């Protein structure tokens, strides 16, 4: 006996929602998914009428679905937003050049303007070259830090008011778990915020409209809507620490499907003691980007790469900031510690 959709009680159900366990037909699922994103945008007041919004597009499933849903909701509910696509080329052969083709196809399908910024033009280094220097561990640090700045620079070039990224519920939950495991109390407090604060020049506020959407539901949506996306993992990701948090979260989901939202609920509700030291927000003395130290992380990382000391950005190095700023050469023992291993 076919199971009927629990929402319209009319058509046959074709899928079971991972989030709530209800069986739904295709149209009801589309409607529920889009409506949830719409409610998230409304209740969190993510956008104002007439703003220009840049959609961070990587060609993967999250950003493709995000672009599709944003365009749809913009028309359906008349948000009055001007949408643009923004993409970052990290220079990873076999991965990024393929996904960029997907983004270019998306641009044509959705008729949105596209801007691609690359690490090569912004920093003079591609991820492949960085991995050759740094090794297969700790390279996600470089990519993440550089990408954040690249997105901001691209947004300023495009003159957008806000950036929206395709982070989904699984990503936010993984981040909460990873910050607990790493003991990063400052990030733990901030990571569940749906949008970042909008202070400072050179920084464009960013938000996550898909924050409460399960990754599995995003894939279901893209599959049934026959959306075109690129689905390979980054070739350097298997050694990342985040992988542990991800496996744990996947196991949690198999025991209890609501765990993902439960973790996000925990992250939103935990509070830090007042006497715990928190980093203060300032600006980098070299490039003017926001930073909590005298030098921002990307300047430190770049300095390390350019000097052939790739470990400069990894681990604690506050004392060396002054030396770097004043262009002094480092002592020999310091140099030895920061050099990479030879393969």
């Amino acid at each position: 006996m076919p199971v009927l959709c629990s929402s319209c009680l009319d058509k046959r159900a074709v899928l079971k929602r991972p989030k709530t366990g209800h069986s739904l037909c295709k149209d009801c699922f589309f409607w529920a998914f889009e409506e949830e994103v719409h409610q998230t945008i409304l209740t969190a007041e993510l956008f104002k009428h007439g703003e220009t919004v840049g959609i961070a597009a990587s060609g993967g499933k999250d950003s493709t679905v995000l672009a599709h849903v944003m365009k749809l909701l913009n028309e359906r509910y008349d948000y009055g937003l001007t949408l643009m696509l923004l993409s970052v080329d990290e220079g990873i052969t076999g991965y990024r050049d393929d996904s960029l083709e997907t983004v270019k196809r998306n641009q044509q399908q959705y008729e949105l303007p596209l801007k691609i910024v690359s690490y090569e033009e912004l920093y003079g280094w591609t991820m492949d070259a960085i991995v050759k220097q740094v090794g297969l561990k700790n390279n996600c640090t470089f990519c993440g830090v550089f990408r954040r700045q690249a997105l901001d620079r691209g947004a300023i070039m495009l003159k957008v008011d806000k950036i929206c990224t395709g982070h989904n519920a699984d990503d936010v939950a993984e981040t909460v778990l990873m910050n607990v495991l790493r003991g990063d109390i400052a990030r733990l407090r901030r990571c569940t915020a749906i949008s970042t604060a909008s202070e400072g020049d050179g920084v464009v506020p960013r938000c996550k409209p898909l924050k409460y959407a399960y990754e599995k539901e995003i894939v279901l949506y893209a599959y049934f809507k026959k959306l075109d996306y690129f689905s390979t993992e980054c070739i350097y990701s298997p050694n990342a620490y985040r992988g542990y948090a991800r496996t744990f979260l996947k196991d949690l989901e198999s025991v209890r499907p609501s765990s993902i939202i439960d973790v996000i609920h925990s992250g939103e509700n935990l509070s830090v003691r007042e006497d715990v030291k928190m980093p203060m927000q300032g600006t980098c003395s070299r490039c003017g980007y926001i930073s909590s130290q005298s030098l921002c992380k990307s300047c430190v990382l770049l300095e390390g790469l350019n000097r052939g000391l790739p470990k400069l950005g990894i681990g604690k190095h506050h004392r060396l900031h002054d030396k770097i700023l004043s262009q002094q050469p480092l002592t020999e023992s310091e140099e030895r510690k920061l050099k990479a291993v030879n393969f």
Partner: protein
Amino acid sequence: MCQVEEDYNDALEHQNVPCISKKCLKCKELTAAVVIRAGDPYCRDCFKEYFIHKFRAMLGKNRVIFPGEKVLLAVSGGPSSCSMLSQVQQGLSQNAHKKLRFVPGIVFIDEGGAVGQSVEERRKTVAELQTVFKATGFPFHIVPLEQVLALPSEVITTVPPSSQRTASAYKAAVDKFTNELKFIGESSNSRATEQEEKETLFPDVPESETQLLQQLITSAKTLTARQDLLNTLRQHLLVHTARTEGYSKLMLGDHCTRLAIKLLTSISLGRGAQLAQDTGFADLRFGDVIIVKPMRDYSAKEIAYYNHMFSVPTVFTPNLETKTTEKASIQRLTESFVTKLQADFPSTVSTIYRTSEKLQTVAKGSSTGHQCDRCLLCMCSLDTDVEKASAFKATLISEQLSRTKSPRASSTNIQSPNPEMAATAGQCCSSEEAKDCDSVASGEGCCSPAKTPEATDLKSLLCYSCRLTMKDMSSMERLPPYILLEAQRRQRRSRMREEIADFLLDECD
């Protein structure tokens, strides 16, 4: 660190590989017997000193236990709580340097009925533990878990403490105590020997009660919910024992590794708002009975070494998760995750532990908290205020969208749905009952006390994670009477409060 051709030139100059034949780190004379933490060799005596000192320092640093106070030690028979018992015993012995100054008692909760042990096995465990307890000379109580079926509903209320025990009052209290001792002299343990005689008889629990308890536990369909329910019942029983026997403090034997696992489990269960109370040193949610965890600085390894080297007696008792697979429950999954991660990254447990020290409980409104603003089961402040954009709200929206008819054309009908809408949709069947109760105006004397509240009614009294546990339970009727009675009382009070809400001046209960 784990790269293929590692260049060890730097590292080998500075770091010595720790091994037992090295000299002790502290006294530098005797050869080491154990290697603790990340490679610190200790000889036998220095290790003992280190272990004992840590216990004292933990009690002394957090000035929570006042001199002369009655403290109840919750001993499960496992290595950590037996180690705690041995530490207290040593600390109170006559020749201890700076004796501990409180009056201890022991309690053991016999959970054999819930776990499925036979009567003979339970008797055997209890007999073994009795020998251990008698050897300490402290008064002990052996309480079967079946007693939860007979608890009064006052267990799940917060009672304000009888006297103000602030940190500043601690120093004054200590001075006063030492002065009194000089006059009276040390009193012997004659009180303890009297009570010993009373405890030797342990009657078997009636079979019907065990069956009721098992039905209660099996009404929770998943192992996660069962474990959660069992923990709640155990905590209530411990607090009740402490209250009736006149103890103002309860000591639990949770060690660092278990607390790190508990922190991650609590996050996965949605207990983010209650993390500080679940894993902190002092837990004040019950008001008059404060729950402390003096073993929280010890890693499981240190406790195991100490118990082995100094022959601390332990008794093994199986629990719900013994011999289950890795993915049987969230608690079990987290345990295997943390232990595996600890093997690759040795600082994992201590990092998680340090994170737990930086958390606090947010105090909503007054510090004692509105009676109705506490969860019915776990007694922590409710975290289900539906804010404008939160994960909780998102779940409510999803539930609603997946269930109701979706008018695709007129989609502008959906304004921000509030929990009342979802709740009233499910409560339509019980609204008749509500009307009946309202007609009895006074509220306290309800027309039919035996009526069990619907599941949807209970939900509003629970915090986020207890709601998840309730969702996994097949029926509410199996819950012990004290929970159901208290639920009804709170519902009546909140209805009364709603009626006179306009005329109340302040929020104190």
